[in-house]
């Protein structure tokens, strides 16, 4: 029987090795430390649960009145109190995936260059500046988006593309500037630093022996990177992507400033859209009426669920991927 029932056996045996005099004091310190950290961990858990409970409680009136059509209806009309959140859901998902599509090759490519090819004098400034991007407040990105990105994107990318490829549904319709594409681009710039820095960490964990082994077998540098990344780094890079996706899903200010804020579902990336976080930020402060407020909170709830689903799916994929990668690495 251990002295305190909540002590694990392992710790008791360990403290038994120590001088008898020190024991009680060490134990109390250990105990305090353990319980304090447990308390902190519980706090995080409690916060999440409270957040969830509050979202559910506040959105109950909307859930009761609107029901499932909330996520299938495409009309958002605060005047007639008809609330359908599908356009916002669509906008959030599409702009975030667009961002990943752009940021992933950019971030991973830059990480490979910095780690494997860049001369020393270039390494530090490039990675420093890239990481600095992560520290810029999103409203600055939004302003920059309005005044720099939108005109450039409109005049030098969207207009020419629309002239040549305007018949493809993805690029159809008049060109304004504010659009799903602009939102995707600005989000991608915001998440590149995450993908870049995590990818660099992951690349750095590759044992030197493995890399040298590939080279010594006559592999080129490209083959080395392909083999090493393919077998060792994919789970880590995937994790970085999910981290970036998480940020993109919840980003508000920068998105609302460039997306055009139009609750429509259109395939064309050149047309304006809307996102869940953006509509909450836009309409919450001035919303009056119980159902309206409640519907806005329910959008928050849907966003919460979307984030959870994305993380769970990612975890699942990762779990299936890791053993394979390990196997590959061992081979």
């Amino acid at each position, binding site marked *: 029987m251990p002295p305190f029932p909540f002590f694990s056996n392992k710790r008791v045996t360990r403290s038994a090795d120590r001088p008898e005099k020190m024991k009680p004091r060490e134990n109390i310190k250990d105990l305090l430390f353990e319980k304090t950290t447990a308390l902190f961990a519980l706090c995080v858990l409690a916060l999440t649960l409270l957040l969830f409970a509050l979202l559910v409680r506040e959105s109950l009136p909307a859930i009761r009145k609107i029901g499932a059509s909330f996520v299938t209806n495409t*009309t*958002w*009309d*605060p*005047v*007639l109190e008809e609330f359908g959140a599908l356009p916002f859901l669509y906008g959030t998902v599409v702009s975030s995936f667009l961002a990943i599509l752009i940021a992933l090759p950019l971030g991973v490519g830059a990480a490979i260059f910095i780690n494997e090819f860049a001369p020393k004098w270039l390494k530090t400034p490039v990675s420093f500046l890239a990481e600095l991007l992560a520290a810029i407040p999103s409203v600055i990105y939004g302003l920059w988006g*309005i*005044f720099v990105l*939108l*005109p450039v994107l409109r005049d030098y990318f969207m207009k020419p593309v629309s002239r040549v490829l305007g018949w493809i549904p993805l690029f159809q319709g*008049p060109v*304004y*500037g*504010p659009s799903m594409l602009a939102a995707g681009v600005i989000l991608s710039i915001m998440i590149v630093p995450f993908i870049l820095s995590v990818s660099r960490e992951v690349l750095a964990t590759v044992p030197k022996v493995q890399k040298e082994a590939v080279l010594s077998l006559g592999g080129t540098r490209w083959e080395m990177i392909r083999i090493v990344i393919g077998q060792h780094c994919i789970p880590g890079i995937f994790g970085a992507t999910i981290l970036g996706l998480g940020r993109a899903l919840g980003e508000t200010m920068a998105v*609302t*400033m460039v997306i*055009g*804020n*139009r*609750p429509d579902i259109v395939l064309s990336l050149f047309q*304006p859209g*809307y996102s869940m976080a*953006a509509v909450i*930020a*836009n*309409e*919450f*402060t*001035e*919303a*009056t*009426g119980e159902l309206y407020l409640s519907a806005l909170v329910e959008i928050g709830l849907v966003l919460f669920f979307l984030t959870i689903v994305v993380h769970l799916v990612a975890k699942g994929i990762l779990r299936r991927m890791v053993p394979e990668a390990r196997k590959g690495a061992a081979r």
Partner: protein
Amino acid sequence: MKKRMAIGIAIFGIAFWIGGASPAGAADSFTVTGAGATFPYPLYSKWFYEYSNAHPGVNFNYQSIGSGGGIRQITAGTVDFGATDAPMKDEDMVKLPGPIFHIPTAIGAVTVVYNLERVKSGLKLTPDALANIYLGKITRWNDPQIASQNPGVKLPGEDIVVAHRSDGSGTTDIFTNYLATVNPGWKKKVGRGKSVRWPVGLGGKGNEGVAGVVKQTPGAIGYVELAYATQNKMTVAAVRNREGAFILPSLESTSEAAAGAAKTMPADYRVALVDAPGKGSYPICGFTWLLVYKDQRDAAKGKALVSFLKWAMHDGQKMNTPLLYAPIPKPVVEKVDATLKQIQYKGKSLY
């Protein structure tokens, strides 16, 4: 070492606590709190500053969290006064713990701005043309509905890019209220509100968001507050009023609208100024209000609030014009004075 640090932190904390507590503990100094509309915030903060300087001991804490938030807070009783750009709806007033007064403090105008190369300020728009542009029925600048009112102006055949506010705002409320008043089609299809379901157009966040779209998109049209358009020297349209004259937005034409509406002012001031009579009156404007309970819960605070409101309606009004808000017309001020006399603490007037 650790102990010393802990003591240091404790001393610091206590000092902070005492420092923070002492002003509140002083004899006859207190803070009147308010929350609400962002549109009149520059004017209110000037008023609070001037009034506090002239009346030491009275401090104001105003949070410009938006009209909706202001209404929510005054309904919950967490602030001493609220502020709103759109009058409270009847169904919201039922939820209040007691009768409330809407005190009009200033008048704001909403200007129609556009971006057309070679067309300077003063493009003439009829109410129907404006409504049809926002309904998506007029899509090109050289549409006969616009061109017929602007002989001699060379209008391009460009697409009209419509911009509107994406965030809920009193500005949108005034603008949509105007369109709903002058155009039955708008009233039926869209209606009036701080956020509406726009048939066409891009949403910009805030005045700066709409202005950003308009300034950067050739062929764009949008609406922003008068003060914002003036300060940023934007190209503004003249809108036809109900007397048939095309009026450019300005403080004078806004005041004239208020004077025109003063005659038919209801007792609770919850009136829209849009499409007001008067030869020179600009048709798209509206009041902004402070929300004050008739029965005050705290004698001293209530007294301070009433004397502040009295000051704001007289001395304070002189600060409206320099800050680009139209002042409340004299006949309305007299009416408001009578209303302020009804504010009471336990049945006694605080005026």
